């Protein structure tokens, strides 16, 4: 893992795009006919959903490559992507709950889209917890990679749940299902979250890499002596 500055630049670019898209969505975008101003939540909720699935797809790819090729780099990226996916999934559920209250009249409903998303959040949060419990680095890498491959089955279920089952949640928001007047703030925020997560996943992978290197490094003689009480 390198030490270059590009992840900081990409993270900063992502934050700047998010500010730009959010101001556009809050101030300049028109009100939606039926939902009124509440629809403006879409400009943060939908980019979060798209990128949560994208980051978890990257975690799945890292898990497969970790199992097939080995190498600690894929394991570090897997850990970073799973953590990023958990953060975005938790944010997604919170935003959705806030949007549900004025539109559906409830904070939460066990409808297929919400239920599969909650399963996604808890499955990947469980994988992060699993990593914390396993001391052996090899077992930790293999077990979490297998767990990610199994948990990833839920991602297409989340995406297609609104089509396959009778859901309270609306169909997927895409350029085909969203009015043209709403496209630009949605796209800007989608790229904002994407750039932010690219930068943060790379930085988080470097952190996992450093921890892994420190874990396998032999203890310094002075530390051994200190632990034995000789210094």
């Amino acid at each position: 893992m390198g030490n270059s500055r590009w992840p900081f630049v990409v993270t900063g670019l992502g934050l700047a795009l998010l500010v730009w898209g959010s101001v556009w969505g809050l101030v300049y975008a028109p009100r939606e006919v039926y939902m009124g101003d509440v629809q403006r939540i879409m400009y943060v909720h939908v980019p979060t959903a798209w990128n949560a699935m994208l980051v978890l797809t990257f975690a799945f790819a890292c898990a497969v490559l970790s199992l097939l090729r080995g190498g600690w780099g894929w394991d570090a990226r897997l850990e970073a992507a799973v953590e990023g996916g958990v953060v975005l999934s938790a944010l997604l559920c919170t935003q959705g709950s806030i949007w549900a209250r004025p539109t559906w009249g409830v904070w939460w409903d066990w409808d297929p889209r919400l239920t599969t998303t909650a399963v996604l959040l808890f499955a990947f949060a469980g994988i992060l917890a699993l990593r914390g419990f396993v001391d052996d680095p090899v077992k930790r890498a293999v077990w979490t990679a297998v767990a990610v491959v199994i948990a990833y089955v839920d991602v297409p279920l989340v995406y297609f749940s609104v089509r396959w089952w009778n859901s309270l949640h609306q169909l997927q928001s895409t350029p085909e299902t969203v009015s043209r007047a709403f496209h630009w703030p949605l796209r800007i925020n989608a790229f904002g979250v994407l750039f932010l997560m690219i930068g943060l996943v790379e930085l988080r992978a470097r952190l996992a890499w450093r921890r892994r290197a420190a874990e396998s490094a032999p203890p310094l003689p002075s530390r051994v002596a200190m632990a034995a009480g000789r210094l």
Partner: protein
Amino acid sequence: MRGVIEGGWEFVIAAYAVTAVVLLGYAFSVCWRLWRAPRP
């Protein structure tokens, strides 16, 4: 009852505030942990 939602800015502000806190908080958390991590 017209089937149109009136108002609701408090929900919009809450959603944007939660988004800002979570994303900025996570960005800060990653940078802080990386800065404190041992260098190989």
